[in-house]
């Protein structure tokens, strides 16, 4: 079996789907909600736009009686990635992918190729998010800088200890952590699809996102993408912990999926 051929087949089949383009208006809507901040704050940078998308929300004070306002833009962008990747494995497994599977001759190789595809797919999705943020930034006269503007974050999160971060810190919490979290949740969703219906897998992983918004703890999968909760902003989520959780979830999903797929019954879509 030529793994590269197998992987390139997955890339060809998986990335040509139009749903990546369908997500662009969602990214644009999520960005548009930042325009009110941009108007009142000078010196907004590209990273501020990215921070807006992946900021999440401040931890709710449980028992305070205060209504919890969920960050819809954040949920749409994060949940969108799960939706985009949701059915590729199962759709391929129950259709043309069976011909590929018997030719590659290895269940493990086939599943690992799908895992690798998942990383690339999340990367493409994430690049789309960053691109839309860049378009909004440039269109509103912002700077293409990798540093943040504390005033912009303070406007949105007044109870957070906002401060200027270095480019490296911004890249860590604005790009590396959200991407890793997306990839880990998506890998978990793909593996769950082997055990239950795809819609249940999606609900489980998007549920994890909701739980991570509600509880302020770094060990909950999904917390890594909520950058306003990181210790760099005085929050409870240590980037190192979030990276470890994401990597553990990613690798755990790959291992569990590989084991399960070895004994998976493979049917066609009609069966």
């Amino acid at each position, binding site marked *: 079996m*030529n793994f590269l051929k197998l992987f390139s087949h997955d890339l060809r089949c998986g990335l040509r789907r139009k749903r990546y383009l369908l997500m662009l208006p969602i990214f644009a809507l999520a960005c548009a909600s930042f325009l009110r901040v941009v108007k009142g704050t000078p010196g907004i940078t590209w990273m501020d736009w990215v921070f807006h998308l992946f900021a999440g929300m401040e931890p709710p004070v449980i028992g305070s009686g205060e209504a919890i306002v969920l960050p819809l833009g954040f949920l749409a962008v994060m949940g969108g990635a799960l939706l985009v990747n949701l059915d590729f494995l199962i759709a391929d497994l129950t259709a*043309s992918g*069976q011909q590929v599977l*018997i*030719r590659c*001759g290895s*269940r493990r190789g086939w599943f690992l190729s799908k895992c690798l595809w998942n990383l690339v797919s999340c990367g493409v999705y994430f690049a789309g998010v960053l691109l839309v943020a860049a378009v909004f930034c440039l269109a509103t006269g912002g700077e293409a800088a990798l540093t943040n503007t504390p005033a912009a974050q303070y406007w949105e999160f007044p109870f957070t200890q906002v401060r200027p971060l270095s480019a490296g810190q911004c890249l860590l919490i604005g790009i590396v952590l959200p991407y890793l979290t997306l990839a880990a949740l998506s890998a978990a969703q793909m593996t769950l699809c082997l055990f239950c219906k795809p819609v249940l897998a999606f609900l489980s992983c998007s549920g994890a996102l909701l739980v991570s918004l509600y509880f302020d703890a770094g060990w909950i999968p999904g917390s890594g993408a909520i950058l306003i909760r990181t210790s760099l902003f005085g929050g409870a989520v240590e980037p190192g912990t979030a990276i470890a959780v994401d990597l553990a979830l990613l690798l755990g999903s790959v291992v569990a999926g590989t084991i399960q797929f070895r*004994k998976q019954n*493979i049917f066609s879509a*009609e069966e």
Partner: protein
Amino acid sequence: MEILIENASKTIRGAEVLKDVNLRLTGGTIYGLRGPNGSGKTMLLRLMAGLIRPTTGRVLLDGKELGKELDFPPSLGMLLENPAFLPEYTGLRNLILLAQIQNRVGASEVRQALLDVGLDPEDRRTYRKYSLGMKQRLGIAAAILEKPEMLLLDEPTNALDAAGSALIEDRIRRERDRGALVVVASHDGAFLERLAEEIYTVTEGRVAK
């Protein structure tokens, strides 16, 4: 090549879809599986293809156990249920993409496989625009593409007219003649009588000669 199925049963969601199947099939022969819809023909083909694992019993391919020593038969062509291909590509492009996975055959063999089932390699139409009969022919072309040692065909004459069926029958015999082990499942008894050297009847998951 030889496939040996020993005491194989398969239970799916509490329903026993294959019951204590024992079969020994060898290369150079066309075997027929007949039975009504839902009798277990397709499930038996899936078992031989390695797509499902037996709940009890085992499947041996030239002495190697499927699911333990082998994930799939190393040289397998199959058409199970409805053929499925990438809808945006032509038939030729679809087969080339499949052939590239193993790199056993080149572009000329791919074209020949299409000609063998009565399809035009130069046809610029995408798979999406194919008629049902053309899709079926492409499915058979994919199955025979790499001259497999084991060929599993489920209702291969579905959606084909009389001329198309005759062409496919001839093609299947040629596969047998070069030594392939061919298993054809069909509910069309007359078709199997014409084609197969040994016919098994599948009834409620049980297989009998």
